């Protein structure tokens, strides 16, 4: 299956690991991520605070390019996804908006090809193939699936399987042989940019999620959004210091776990780049060779 891959600005920066892992596993699972040519910023987090029309027009251009290619967009970043889905919804539900947007981007856009999250793409088209490709099932790993807020809401158009109790990441966790834990904060907000701008509010939100994950017995958190990943991974150290007891919850993208289960080297998936050491847990569980033997025993 071919998709127009829209990395957005974060996948080559803060979300590099997501990009690496997704690009690494996609071809193995029969998914062709063709990068959208001449893509522009989706405007997330700032455009819709400035100008509502602009906030629709920015993603519309990308969507129109995709439509021109006859491809659905596959979007890894939850914020990009949210903006694109918002545009798609607005164009579909009002002929007036539709005309306005087309005149602004100066090309036709009919919302004919549904926008998909990368998560959705993997769930829809690769689950069967995945079963054949798994060489190292992650047996015994307890993982908390964390979806964040943007993938699930607003419920009108985000089409998550279940906005209050989503299952898609849990399904992937099960598929790679690990054990998803049941916990209450799957869709709680991680605070997005707030931990930087308003540390008091932001860190409380992150803290709450980490604490609940810990209580649930999870050994790691699995997410599907670069912003969530960033917050949960990078803030752990400071929050641990603050409470006087460190958190030790490696955070993975679901694509990374899929890669490991398929026997790909962790470096190729960017697992060596996390703030919270994410390699140790994997080697402890013997999913990857221990750090010492890595040099000689890398996969072929």
């Amino acid at each position, binding site marked *: 299956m071919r998709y127009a891959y829209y990395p957005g600005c974060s996948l080559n920066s803060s979300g590099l690991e997501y990009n690496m892992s997704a690009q690494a596993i996609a071809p193995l699972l029969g998914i062709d991520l063709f990068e959208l040519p001449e893509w522009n910023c989706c405007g997330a987090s700032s455009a819709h605070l400035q100008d509502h029309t602009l906030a629709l027009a920015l993603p519309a251009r990308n969507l129109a390019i995709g439509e021109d290619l006859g491809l659905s967009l596959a979007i890894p970043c939850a914020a990009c996804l949210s903006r694109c889905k918002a545009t798609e919804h607005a164009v579909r539900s009002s002929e007036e908006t539709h005309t306005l947007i087309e005149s602004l981007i100066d090309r036709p856009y009919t919302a004919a090809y549904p926008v998909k999250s990368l998560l959705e793409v993997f769930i829809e088209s690769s689950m069967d193939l995945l079963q054949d490709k798994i060489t190292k099932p992650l047996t015994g790993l307890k993982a908390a699936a964390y979806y964040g807020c943007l993938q699930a809401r607003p*419920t009108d158009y985000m089409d998550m399987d*279940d*906005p*209050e*109790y989503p299952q898609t990441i849990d399904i992937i966790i099960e598929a790679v042989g690990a054990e998803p834990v049941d916990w*209450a*904060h799957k869709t709680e907000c991680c605070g997005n940019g707030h931990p930087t701008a308003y540390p008091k509010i932001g860190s409380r939100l992150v803290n709450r999620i980490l604490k*609940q994950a810990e*209580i649930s017995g999870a050994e790691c958190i699995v997410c599907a959004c670069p912003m969530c990943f960033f917050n949960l991974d990078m803030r752990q150290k400071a929050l641990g210091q603050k409470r006087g007891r460190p958190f030790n919850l490696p955070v993975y993208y679901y694509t990374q776990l899929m890669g490991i289960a398929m026997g790909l080297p962790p470096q190729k998936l960017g697992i060596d780049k996390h703030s919270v050491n994410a390699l140790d847990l994997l080697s402890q569980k013997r999913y990857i060779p221990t750090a010492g033997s890595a040099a000689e025993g890398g996969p072929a």
Partner: protein
Amino acid sequence: MKKVGVFVCHCGTNIAQTVNCEQLAEAAKTLPGVAYSTEYKYMCSDPGQTMIKKAIEEHNLDRVVVAACSPRMHEATFRKCVNGAGLNPYLLEIANIREQCSWVHSDKTKATAKAEDLIRMAVAKALKNEKLTPSVIPIHKRALVIGGGIAGIQAALDIADTGYQVDLVEREPSIGGKMAQIDKTFPTMDCSACILTPKMVDAAQHPNITIIAYSEVEKVEGYVGNFDVTIRRKATCVDPVKCTGCGLCSQKCPSKTDSEFECNMSQRPAIYSPFPQAIPNKPVIDQEACRYFKTGKCKICQKICASDAVNFEDQDELVTIRYGAIVVATGYSLYDYNQYGEYGYGQYPDVISGLDFERLVNASGPTMGKIKRPSDGQEPKTVVFIKCVGSRDANRGHDYCSRACCMYTAKHATMVRDKIKDSQAVVFYMDIRTPGKNYEEFYLRAVEEYGVTYVRGRVSRIYMESGNLIVQGEDTILGTQILVVADMVVLATAMEAQPDAAEFARKIGITFDQNNFFNEAHPKLRPVETFSAGIYLAGACQGPKDIPDSVAQAGAAAAKVVALLSKDEMATEPIVAEVNTNHCSGCGFCVPVCPYKAISLKTLTERVHGSVAWGPAGKEITRQVAEVNKGLCQGCGACTVNCRSGALDLLGFTNEQILAEVDSL
């Protein structure tokens, strides 16, 4: 030759000051068909009416046009008047030259010209008027009440007390309904059972009431005064005549299943009465739970029954009974809060509904009245109440307010504070609505005397943390987020229509609204009638209601039933639709248009002239034609417009009559 008399009324000066009545009367004389015309100061007065009667006799008039005030004012008066002179009342037409002419115009010339036109129209129509006679339908003096909750019981008692026979149909093994499950009633805190069960006993012992429990209405045919209702008596497997109600069978029954009456918080046997005071107090066998029906072995109850009442061969039975009137009191059901993902999709055992709570505090309930939380049987110290779960929530529930929740939540919170030492009751609410006698006072008591904490805001999420429920919400008055660590959460779930309400409504021929509550005929003026004559509503099947309102409506419905049954027969308005079967093609377009289900198709067999192409020699065909039930038809005429060939026409407002009016100008 038809002879029309025209009578122009001055109405004092009301008409005469802007309309030249003498001129009108003169002009009317020149109209075709008019044989006599005159004017008078007050046509509706005695002398005026006498004048009309005399003119009818003297001039042999066979149609009368009165030009006067609105027909809505005096049509009945003048119909009676012409009838007094031997004319059929429907040969009268009124020209409305007061409300729609003299009072709204000031130019006398133009007003007079318009009045002339109005008379011309009335004469043209009158010439096409035909005699109409009301038809009479007999009233069968027996009433059916469907639903044995408090509304149904009350309606049945009220009807029965006036001397008419009433059948009370209930689908559960016992009457009593939701009220039987409730512990105490607001605002008086009477014990619900203490006030309900005497009424149940009254109903059971009333010589005019027959309780048909464990039965459902299968089919309703007929119309006002003559409903033929088919009732399915479900197999109870217990002979009600032989059974003494000793209860031994229930005690010994080895099959257990969740008790619906106890909101699945305890178990009951397969042969059971739902609760100790059940009426009729004869057990039934729940075939789905019964070991014998599942495995073919057991029959313990049959062996143990001293009076040999258990009969495993019992079958459902259909009976058809004729009734003159029907009261629908099928009640409500509760919103399934499992749809609220943020409240845990029903996976937290200590998040319960208000009705569950009623059973928890009830002395005969699963916990003998001790408030214990379902998960571990501990006494909860902090109980959170959340209102408007499914009510006033267009996204997931219903738009409407369920009306009773504010009060019962106040009641529940009070009971928590009352029964549990050192307890805390926190109520999350959107608004407090207490529009009933002593309701506001009751709520204030909960706040002031019992110290219930009211927080204005919605709860966004409930989750478990270390075995406790964390209730995360917002206090919109303080503008802060709050977290409450609760031992138990009680949801005030919305009252909603029974799941099978729409299907039931179609079955018996009444309409329902967008929430599947049954429609009253008029929201203000006919609150207990339905659009189907002879069918009345009582209780929460019509919309969310508390007990006092349900009882009041039941009484009102009973009064309507009694008024209907007190007559031996009923005259129906003769302005009804009529089918010309020669023109009717049987397309049935009229059928769905009729709001009263007054039109049905019947099959005719007839010989046709000429040949049915390549038909049998006999040339006899069957065809369907529409048939109007004059008892049900209310004369709106909507069917006539959907009848392309004009085979359906509305008497009193026929196509010919209306065209005559159009053409006359």
